[in-house]
């Protein structure tokens, strides 16, 4: 190793005879978390969105440092410039794919070739979204440390993407009934490729054991306006936790679905409310400056003259809504659900921490560009 320590004596952990069950301790403060989210949102406007790399890094650093296990907080060592570099690389990568239907449209090929190009592009994007999800997870894990030991992820993001597309197709042709299989297979791949130091996580979950839970949720999807999906995901989280182990540690969660369901309902209410406010304020502002009146008066030959104005207004409203949606989601949904997850999780078993060694194998150099570009990376 490249560093030097003055440690002539090997460190041995003093072992209490029976360790009490412990879980992650979530100590983040709602007010401070929200303040960071709002600051990031406000700074995104004048910087044309470029602040998000620094903002995301700041938010993660705050969250990681306020989630601790056995008295030691996690540590996030990612840097904004890695995210920025990843974003720029992803831009270069995505541009040719974005251009497929355009190239077909311009080259004057028949119309159905154009439709085929659109479909091909959509499939490629669906695939890339899955690839990006896996790569972003790899980046976050490799930048996560606990007691100075790095976490990591093995496996191939291209394989993960193929699996996700294949099981996604299976879920599609079974009219959604295969969704639990998709979820379990992907969770297995993710977990079995997750490492803490040189210790790999194990997963023994089977989709069959979730089938009836999902079947019930599937039946109730329409009558509950999709809320039964939240109920399923809570049950799924408990099941997945119980089937995960690392070394001699096992996991257990008693998460109840009441809180997540209420949170989801409240979130959608607030989003509807905010959307209505943004829309009405925009209309009122337009009226204030006489634009509405002018648009109504404009004669038919002039309709196209209004296009630049309408486009600019639409774009502004869209940008504002996307920004506010992201902020609201972090504050009202991500924070409280993460808190509930941490609180519900119990870690059992006795681990010889001195037997878990640092591993040098997981060190990606770049950020999660693809994920950021496709907007699938979480907080």
């Amino acid at each position, binding site marked *: *190793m*490249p*560093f*030097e*320590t*003055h*440690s*002539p004596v090997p*460190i*041995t*952990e*003093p072992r209490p005879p029976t360790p009490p069950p412990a879980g992650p301790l979530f100590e983040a403060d709602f007010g401070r978390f929200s303040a960071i989210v709002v600051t990031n949102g406000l*700074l995104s406007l*004048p*910087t*044309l*969105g*470029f*602040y998000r*790399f*620094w903002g995301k890094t700041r938010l993660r650093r705050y969250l990681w*440092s306020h989630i601790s296990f056995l008295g*030691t*907080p996690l*540590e996030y060592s990612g840097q904004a410039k890695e995210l920025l570099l990843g974003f720029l690389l992803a*831009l270069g990568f*995505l*541009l040719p794919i974005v251009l497929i*239907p*355009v190239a077909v*449209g*311009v*080259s*004057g090929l*028949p119309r159905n070739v154009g439709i085929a190009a659109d479909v091909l*592009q*959509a499939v490629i994007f*669906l695939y890339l979204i899955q690839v990006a999800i896996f790569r972003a997870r790899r980046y976050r894990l490799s930048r996560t440390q606990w*007691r*100075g*030991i*790095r976490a990591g992820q093995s496996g191939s993001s291209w394989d993960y993407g193929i699996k996700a597309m294949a099981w996604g197709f299976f879920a599609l042709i079974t009219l959604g009934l295969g969704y639990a299989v998709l979820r379990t297979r992907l969770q297995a791949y993710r977990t079995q490729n997750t490492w*803490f*130091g040189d210790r790999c996580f194990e997963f023994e979950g089977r989709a069959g054991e979730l089938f009836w839970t999902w079947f019930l949720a599937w039946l109730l999807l329409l009558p509950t306006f999709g809320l039964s999906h939240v109920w399923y995901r809570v049950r799924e989280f408990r099941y997945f936790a119980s089937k995960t182990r690392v070394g001699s540690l096992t996991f257990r969660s008693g998460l109840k679905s009441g809180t997540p369901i209420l949170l989801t309902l409240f979130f959608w209410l607030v989003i509807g409310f905010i959307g209505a406010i943004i829309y009405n304020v925009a209309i009122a502002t337009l009226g204030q400056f006489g634009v509405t009146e002018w648009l109504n008066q*404009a*004669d*038919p*030959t*002039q309709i196209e*003259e209004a*296009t*630049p104005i309408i486009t600019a207004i639409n774009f502004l409203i869209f*940008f504002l809504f*996307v920004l506010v949606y992201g902020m609201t989601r972090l504050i009202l949904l991500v924070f409280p659900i993460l808190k509930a997850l941490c609180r519900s999780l119990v870690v059992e078993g006795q681990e010889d*921490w*001195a037997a*878990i060694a*640092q591993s040098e194998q997981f060190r990606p150099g770049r950020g999660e560009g693809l994920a950021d*570009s*496709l907007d699938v990376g979480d907080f």
Partner: protein
Amino acid sequence: MARFAGSYSDGRTAAQLPVQVELMVSDLACRDADGRAVAHWPYETLAYVEAPYPGRPLRLRNGQEDPARLTVSDPDILAELAPRAPQLAPGKHRQAGLGKALLLGLAGIAMVLVILLYALPWGASQAARVIPISWERALGERALDQVDEILAMVGGGRPARCDGAEGRAALDALVARLAEGDGSGYDYEVLVLDHGIVNAFALPGGQMVIFRGLLDQARSPEVVAGILAHEMGHVTARHGTQALLRNISLAVLFDVLFEDPTGGSLSGLGLALSNLSYGRDAEREADQLALERLMAVDIKASGLAEFFAKLKEDHGETEPAFQLLSTHPSHGARQAFFEAAQGRGGPAMTDADWRALKKICNY
């Protein structure tokens, strides 16, 4: 000598050791329960793991490479450390990044402006020049589909094509006369759509569309001839192809920048096809080409001057604030432009042909 209780991990394994932290002359020492030193960290290389959060334990590291970590819960250690390791003093750890992000944002805005105002129009006009006419024609067909769909959406289904035999003959004769000797290589074709809109437009590749509304409103065949000449100007100057290429690249640019390439580019392409406004310079150029064409085939331009005079009278000028954003020159300016050539040239067609053309949709 100041002593503090801390927890030490050596970065090799996940074990943690309770230690006594001693602040020596030139370094910080960690001692285990037996008093043996497990780490000596020089003050110069001492660094925070993260800028300290109030009320949270202080986390220290030795340089940027060493994964060993020291956690101290007693906040008093800060006051003792600050004089020895000035890099740890409070206030030196402001949130970085805002300056850089602002710079990047400004550079981004400048780049977007340069792209919007110079690079895209230039690139589109260069590309439009080399695209073969057959490709332009195919693009035009796609754009026409889009127009049909939009008209069907706003009401009444896809508008019918008007094809009264006598009116059609009169129209084709007018187009042939206007195209006489223009040497552009375009195969012009005019569609009359049965819809009340007072408008006409040109598609890339030589197709033009006139709405019945325009024929109803036109008081002389010279108006129709002038408008057709104007649209032919758009075709030969390849304004439609340029606008299409510009709009498509713009849609692509927005999609990539604003993180939603999936939904965006599909709809963006449709938007690009159906939104063919060319800008004022292009309109002026088409007016200029129209005037030249009308004079070349000896048709009087006064029809258009009257047409714009009537538009101004009926609807007034665009309000000055919106003229900056407006895509056409003002009616008054266009009226004056065509009045300059007044008096010269003859009629566009016979009265009988004009009556037939007026009735092309209900023959």
